[in-house]
């Protein structure tokens, strides 16, 4: 089964009179993990909330001053921040869409039987495994270099060449790397969806005289819908956080052309040491992520309820 089954709540596992001690004993195994997760992720976020309404700069010693929502006002008024939001949206949307389209195509290919299928599958998932920082370095030098890069060499026969990808088309350069990295992720999720299709339904479609294309559009795609949604949502949540590729390839530049939100916050925090503004931007990112994540959780919940 592809989709995880809920334990059926058929019979009540606990009799009515459960002592308090008994209840804690059953809850016990959960507590260490719960406490660690809260301490390491929720408490720091509470601190972020605290910083976001205070003015503090680590370069200028002095106590933090409560400033209400001033930091948020400053952040929203900051042209660099708005630019970073726009870049994040463009980057995430393009990389997610491209890698989903390619991943879907690769998954359809891999769903067929052919010689060496498992080898091809292994080759295809490798980009996702390569350390992103290493991959970024590799693309920056061996692939995007205007003179010696593989990309220009491969494009030369088609009349393109001599392009300095990183400085002329920095956003495209970053999107390409991310697409290369995330296509395997999308492919694996879609492939799991394809392989969960019941062969009987496909057989029935064939008996009814449906062509391959019609079968794909009418039967396979609707079946894949929830897998595609899951891939897009999880992919968005991870790709919004892209940092390695930007740090390694463009350092957010040229100018601010590829500064996305994580890189912007990193700069505010560790270059400008503006705690308040960095924290406010962080809170905004979390709110945006919660919006996406709510959809993601709903999709996962649906996958859940299916059975």
């Amino acid at each position, binding site marked *: 089964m592809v989709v995880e089954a809920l334990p059926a709540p058929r019979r009540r596992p606990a009799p009515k009179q459960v002592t308090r001690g008994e209840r804690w004993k059953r809850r016990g195994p959960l507590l260490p993990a719960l406490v660690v997760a809260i301490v390491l992720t929720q408490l720091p976020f509470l*601190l972020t909330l605290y910083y976001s309404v205070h003015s503090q700069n680590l370069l200028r010693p002095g106590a933090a001053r409560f400033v209400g929502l001033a930091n948020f006002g400053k952040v929203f008024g900051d042209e660099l921040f708005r630019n970073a939001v726009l870049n994040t949206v463009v980057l995430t949307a393009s990389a997610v869409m491209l890698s989903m389209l390619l991943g879907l195509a690769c998954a359809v290919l891999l769903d067929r039987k052919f010689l060496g299928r498992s080898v091809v599958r292994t*080759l295809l998932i490798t980009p996702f*495994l390569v350390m992103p920082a290493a991959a970024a370095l590799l693309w920056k030098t061996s*692939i995007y270099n205007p003179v010696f890069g593989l990309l220009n060499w491969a494009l030369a026969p088609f009349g393109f060449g001599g392009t300095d990808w990183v400085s002329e088309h920095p956003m495209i350069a970053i999107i390409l790397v991310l697409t290369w990295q995330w296509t395997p992720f999308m492919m694996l*999720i879609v492939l799991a969806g394809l392989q969960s299709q019941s062969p009987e339904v496909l057989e029935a479609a064939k008996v009814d005289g449906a062509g391959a294309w019609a079968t794909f559009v009418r039967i396979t795609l609707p079946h894949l819908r929830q897998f595609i949604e899951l891939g897009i949502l999880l992919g968005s949540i991870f790709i919004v956080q892209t940092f390695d590729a930007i740090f390694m390839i463009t350092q957010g530049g040229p100018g601010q052309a590829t500064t996305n939100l994580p890189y912007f916050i990193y700069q505010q925090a560790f270059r400008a040491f503006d705690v308040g503004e960095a924290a406010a931007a962080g809170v905004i990112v979390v709110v945006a992520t919660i919006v996406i994540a709510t959809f993601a959780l709903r999709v996962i919940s649906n996958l859940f309820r299916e059975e």
Partner: protein
Amino acid sequence: MSTLTASPPAATPPAARRQARRRRIRHVRPGDVGIGVLAWVVGIVFFFPVLWMFLTGFKQEAQASTDPPTFVFTPTFEQYAAILERNFAPYFINSLTASVMSTIFVIALATPAAYALSLARIPRWRDSLFFFISTRMMPAVAIILPLYLIAKNVGMLDNVTFLALMYTAMNLPIAVWMIRSFLLELPKEVLEASRMDGAGLFTEIRSIILPMIAPGLAATSLICFIFAWNEFFFAVSLTATQAATVPVFLVGFITSEGLFWARLSAASTMAALPVILAGWAAQKWLVRGLSLGAVK
């Protein structure tokens, strides 16, 4: 190709054999060869940058940046020797320590939690489960500053253990969800039988459940190792000289040594290889880990 599959043993009933033959015939269509070739081309295109990185690491610098690219050359270990000479080992050890330590923490914390959230069925398990997943979705940038300041105040900045704690928090949700999905697959009969035999909870967990989910735990560990090893943001923000991991070592190549492609490729290969191997080994479970156990 399906024609290569062994014919069914003689003992199978004729009807089944006929069906098997029909299935086989159906799969050998002219289009399939085209599909195979196309899939191989796509696979090689995607893999090529990785192969290129691997090859370039064995070149002389002069062969690494040429137009057209050099495909035929005599391999040399010069670059690897140079990397090792430049104190690569401490970074590698830090990466290994942070990844392995965090993976041990994660498995130790997540296994009981997953048990509580699946077989033990504690009240409101669903809320806890979704709480875990929501912590994974929180962007690291939103909490990096407090973490940095906390680490600084308690003297744990540039400390491998602190980094391992971060990776523990990062991987915990994935592990809880994944291990839970393995626990739910355990055959109910086995668990019930052991309970009938009067096995206590502890015995049941130790001698029945743990051995049966051992492969699942191994898969989960590999997935956690992969994410911890490749992590960059925490590493670059929270470490400096003492606890810096392999990705931080690579940062040095952005500027000063960015011109030494062969050396850079050798370093990247050494950085990426452990996870490529772990990922190939965990291939079967990769999708389960990536989708937090939702997709198998």
